[in-house]
Every structure is written in C-alpha cells, then in structure tokens.
C-alpha cells in the first residue's frame, strides 16, 4: 500500500517535470480512470459502460423473445415478464444509447473542433461516474421483494403508482441519469460554443458536432421535465399528493402529457447524433463532400423544433378534442419533410461517388435504408384515424425498434468501426466486421419485420402470452432475435481483438477519403491533443468549401 502511494507520488513529480510531454498518462488505475479529467478517457469509460448496458438490456430482450417464442407461459411469470420489458427499455434508452452518444461526443468533439479538451473536465468526470451508481440502483430493484419496475418505461400512473418500494429507487435512478445527461450537455455546449479553434466557424463544423449541439439543447430542455414528472409520481406514491390521482382531483392523463413532452424530444436525442455520424461516414466512403451541408444543419434544427410540438401523437386514444388530434397529426407529418431532406442528401452524396464498402459504410447504408422503413411506419402511425387501430400493438413496437436498432444502434456501430482505428491506432478485422454487419442486418429484419404484421393483425404489446394465430410470426421474430443477440458478441470480439491483438497499425488518416481535424492527428491521438490550436486549412476540412 505504502509502496504504491510513494510510486504515484513520484509519478506526479515526474509529470510536473515534463509538462510538455505529449503522451503522459497517469499510470495508477485509480488516477487514470476514477479521477480522470481527460476527454478521451472519459469517452472510453462512457463507451465501455454503454456496451455493458447494451448487453444487460439485450439479455432482457432475449428473455422477452424466449417467452414469446411460443404461445402460452413457458419460462417466466407474467409479472417478471413485465419487469423485463420495463427494464429492457429503461436500460437501452438511458444506459446504452444515450451514454454511448455522450461517449462519442467526449472522444470526438474536442478533436473535431480543434480543442484541447472538454470545457469543464472535472464536471465531465462527475457526469460519467454518476451513471454506474444510477444503474446499480435501478438494477438492484430486480433483487428486491417487490421486484423491478413493471409498469412500462413510460411509468404511466395509476399502474406505476401501484409499484412497491422499488419505485423510490427507480425515481432516484432516473433523477441521477437526468443530472448526468444535463451536466454532459452543458459541457458539450460550452465546448462547442467557446473552444473552437480559430477559423472554425459554426458553419464549418462537422455535422456530428452540429447534431450534438442541438441534441444537448434538447437534453437541457427536456430532462428536467422528466425529473419533474417522476418527482410528482414519487410524491403521489409516498407523500399523499394527487397530481395524477383522479380520486384526489388530479388527472392521470396529465402525466402522459408531461411525460411525452419529454419523451418525444427524447427519441430525437437518441437519433440526431446518429444523423451526424452517418453524415460523417457517407462522404468519406463515397469520396465526395456531403451534399447540402447547410440544408442538413437547418433540417436538424427543424426536427428539434418540431419535436416539442408533436408529443400528443403518442396519446391519440386518450380522448382529445378533434382540433388537438388534427394539430398533432399534421405537425407530426411535417417532420417527414426535414427528415426526407436528410435521406435525400445522404443518397445524393452517394450518387456517382467512388464508393467502397468498408464496415462503417455498410452500417451507414444499412442505417439509411432501415431507418427510412422505421420513418415510414412512423408516418402511418401519425395518422390519428388509423392510430386508433395501431395504438399499443406490435406495429408500434416494430416502428420504434426500426428507428432505434437499425437506426440509432447501427449508427453507433458504424461510428465505432469508423473511429476505432483512430482511437486504438490499430485496424480491426475487416472480415469479422463485415460478418457482424451482414448477420446483424439480416437478423434485425427477421426480428422486427414480422412484428409489423403481428401489430396489424391486432397483437397487443407488453403481454407474455398471445392467441395462437400469432404463433408463426412470433417464432420467426424470436429466431431473428436470437441471431441478432448472438451476432453482437462478434462486435465485442472485433473490439477486443483490435485493442489487444491486432498487428495492423492504422495511419493518421485511416480512411482514404476521410476529412476533418481528427484525421490530421496520429492514430492513436496523443493523450493531450491540440494544446496549440490547429491551423484550419480548407483541404483538411470536410465542409470548408461553403459553395456546395
């Protein structure tokens, strides 16, 4: 013990002596990871944490698909099934997708805008280290007498108010996740607005930076609203208030309004950074500048604005004045316009490009195709008159899984493969990356496409058992689910191989067509990069030429 502390003391003196030494990392594990303020280390922590959560949430999905493999109750009790659907959603949304994007933001934003680090490095450390505690609290409910939360991730009252003691843990876990996200967002905004290298004007920023800037504003605007909503649930449950209790003069429908005022921007929080990543990758492998750069920026901003005025399309069936239904229906359909602009621009970027199909490009193209399918089923759901039939069926499940799995998750995979050589300095196995892609892309469709038919035939969501007429499609869907789940182990294998085993070193540029400031650094980049701001040169920048 004493030897160790002396050792780290020596290290500090050493660090002070060689302050200008580029690649100095703290050598003790505690200093390197627990007390780190380095954006690259914190980015890695976020990414590893979210990958762990992806597998925990994914194993819950496997329980769900195993139970739904056949009609009847085979493996789990209905109450445990409900806990699995609820926890799967909470963990995937707040534990996997959101922290993964924050991880990308931490790693890439300072390198993309030529900043030495994030604006508020100590707060950055705190925003990450809250998360393991939040999710330990959330997961601990599974081992309590009352079990985990089972009222769905939307926590609708009155059902959620019938939860046992676990409810307080769930609410505080959500509070902590919210605080973490808000701090992370403040950091991202401060970094982007204050720390750009000289010459990096707003309309020269890479699109990933732009989409994250807008996402961060969405997070600051809506995470506190969710915190308020769950606080009201908490006081209704434990302190006798009646915000959502009809018997006491409250209204459970009001919860749905507050929740979805958060919930709809939340789904764009998960997808906007995906738009950004795909907008980085497609130009690289099409070897053409992004088509319609400024249109992309304005489309992202429009989607973010519209996300605040469409929330009630999640609740067309609660009983709403006709004008309300019409307003929310048309406003929702309006989102198809900026989203269509984006899809058009990605396709136009590929048009007559010299395309190659490395793994990141495959995932990015998979994203464009499959996300669009999810977008189109979203348009169908936006029609208030037919939503009365689709509401709470597997059609909705198919829709949001298409935009979240081959949407957000594929973009995360694409980004991971794209920047993995930059982060590690080594090439991953292209062969196994491609196997991972093809298995994922095929199985994700076997998994989710039949769920459209199940929903149209009337199968309700969130149930452990179903009528025999739904048996065939459910079995197909489950088989797809198992293949998809198993395929993700390949992803871990590729990463572990790349980090520890790969002998093929990566160049600074990594990809022939890559443009942007992160590629002028070595691979892996020095521990402290851009201590002196880079000179912005139009040839190194992806969007420096504003004429296109």
């Amino acid at each position, binding site marked *: 013990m004493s030897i160790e502390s002396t050792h780290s003391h020596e290290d500090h003196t050493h660090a002070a002596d060689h302050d200008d030494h580029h690649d100095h990392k703290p050598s003790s594990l505690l200093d390197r990871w627990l007390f780190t303020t380095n954006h690259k280390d914190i980015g890695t922590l976020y990414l590893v944490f979210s990958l762990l959560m992806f597998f925990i949430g994914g194993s819950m999905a496997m329980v769900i698909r195993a139970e739904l493999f056949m009609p009847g109750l085979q493996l789990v009790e209905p109450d445990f099934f409900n806990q699995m659907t609820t926890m799967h959603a909470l963990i995937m949304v707040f534990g996997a997708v959101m922290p993964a994007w924050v991880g990308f933001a931490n790693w890439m934003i300072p390198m993309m805008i030529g900043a030495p680090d994030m604006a508020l490095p100590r707060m950055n450390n705190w925003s990450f280290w809250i998360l393991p505690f939040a999710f330990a609290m959330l997961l601990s409910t599974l081992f309590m007498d009352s079990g985990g939360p089972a009222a769905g991730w939307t926590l609708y009252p009155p059902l959620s108010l019938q939860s046992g003691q676990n409810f307080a843990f769930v609410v505080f876990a959500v509070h902590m996740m919210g605080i973490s996200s808000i701090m992370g967002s403040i950091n991202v*905004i401060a970094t982007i607005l*204050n720390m750009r290298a000289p010459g990096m004007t707003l309309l020269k920023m890479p699109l990933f930076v732009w989409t994250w800037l807008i996402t961060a504003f969405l997070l*600051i605007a809506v995470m506190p*609203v969710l*915190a308020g909503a769950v606080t009201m649930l908490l006081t209704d449950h434990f302190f006798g208030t009646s915000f959502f209790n009809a*018997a006491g003069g409250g209204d459970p429908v009001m919860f749905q309004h507050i929740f979805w005022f958060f919930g709809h921007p939340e789904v764009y929080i998960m997808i906007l950074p995906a738009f950004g990543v795909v907008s980085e990758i497609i130009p690289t492998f099409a070897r053409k500048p992004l088509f319609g750069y400024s249109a992309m920026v304005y489309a992202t901003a429009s989607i973010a604005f519209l996300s605040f005025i469409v929330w009630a399309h999640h609740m067309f069936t609660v009983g709403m*004045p006709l004008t309300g239904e019409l307003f929310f229906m048309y406003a929702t359909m309006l989102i198809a316009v900026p989203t269509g602009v984006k899809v058009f621009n990605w396709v136009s970027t590929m048009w007559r490009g010299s395309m190659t199909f490395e793994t990141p490009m495959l995932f990015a193209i998979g994203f464009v195709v499959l996300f669009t399918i999810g977008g189109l089923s979203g348009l169908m759901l936006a029609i208030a008159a037919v939503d009365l039939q689709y509401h709470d069926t597997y059609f909705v499940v198919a829709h949001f899984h298409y935009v979240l799995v081959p949407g957000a998750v594929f973009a995360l995979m694409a980004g991971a493969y794209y920047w993995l050589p930059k982060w590690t300095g080594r090439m991953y196995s292209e062969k196994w990356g491609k196997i991972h892609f093809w298995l994922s892309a095929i199985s994700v469709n076997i998994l989710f496409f039949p769920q459209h038919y199940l929903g149209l035939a009337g199968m309700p969501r969130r149930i452990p058992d179903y009528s025999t007429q739904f048996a065939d499609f459910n079995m197909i869907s489950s088989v797809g689910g198992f293949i998809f789940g198993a395929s993700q182990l390949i992803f871990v294998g590729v990463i572990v191989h790349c980090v520890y085993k790969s002998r093929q070193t990566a160049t600074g540029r990594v990809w022939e067509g890559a443009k942007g400031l992160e590629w002028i650094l070595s691979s892996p980049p020095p521990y402290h990069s851009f201590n002196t701001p880079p000179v912005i040169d139009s040839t190194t920048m992806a969007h420096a030429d504003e004429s296109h």
Partner: protein
Amino acid sequence: MNEGQAKRDQSHGKLVTRLVLLAIGMFGFGFAMWPLYNVFCDLTGLGGRGVKVIENATVPEKSDRQVKIRFDATVNSGLPWIFQAKEKSMVVSLGEMSEALYLAMNPNDQAMAGQAIYNVTPPEASLYFVKTECFCFTEQVLQGNESREMPVYYFIQPDLPENIKEITLSYTFYRDENFDPLALTAGSASSSD
C-alpha cells in the same frame, strides 16, 4: 495564452450559468404544467371539467333537438362495490331537466365510503352539461350489504354544437381510505343516547 485562458473561463462561467438556469427553469416548467393543464381543461372541457354545477339553475326553454346520453359506471379496484347505471342510455331534448339513476351496492359486511368522480365525452360537450344535483357532490357511505339508488339531475344547454349527437357521462367510484366504519357506528350510537 494565460489571458486567453482567463477570458475563456469567464465566458464558460456566463454560458454555464445560463444553461443551468435553463435546466432549473424547465424543471419548474414540468410543475407549471399542472396549473396550465387545469386552465386548458377548463377551456376545452377536457376531463369533464366543463360541467357546470348549479343547484338552483333556471332551466332554459326546451328545444326540439334531441341527443342521446349514455351512462357509464366503473368502480376502482380499491373499492369492492357493485355500481351500475339503471339505464344504459336515454334520449333527451336539449334544455329538458332529466333524471338518471345509478345503482350502488356494498356487498361487504362493513360500512364503506366512496367518492364518485365524473367525466364527459366528447370533452366539448361537458361545456354544455349542467348538473343541479348529483351523488358525486358528496361522499357516499353505504352500510354493510346496503344498496341505494343514486340520482343525477341534469340538463343540456340548447346551444350544444350541432355535430354532437351522443354524450357519455361516466362515473368512477373511489374508496375513501380514511373512512373508519367504527367511528361512524360509535358516533351514531352516542347521538341516539
């Protein structure tokens, strides 16, 4: 370099303060939804909020137009009562004072108290719905194995929009958890003394 650093820290401070204030403001906005939603409900009649309760209302002139009123009855799972509308629906003229009867029964041995909460669909119809007397105005106590007819006196104002042809009036009975049947019997015993 150091001067630039100081400048940068200062502008971080300003920006971060603004963003934190925004977050706190949005937390407040979540709670502000509560009064805002109430105002919205009062304006649109959502949640049956438009129903007027006037005990000695002057009934307007009866009109030729008729609408169908449907009666719905629900008991919250916390209250083991049987509760139903005596007639599922009736056709009334606008401006006509009408009476609807509900039937409530307490099949348990002990006395219980329930409070009925109402709702009206379509929401805008509630703006034209006037009740002069209703069992939902006060808490209802049913002794063990007692059943009782519970009346509602109401009329629909004649200026009801043309597109509304059917109105549903729905009640849900909730249990008063604080009601103590022993205190009631003790109280009535002492008064009979």
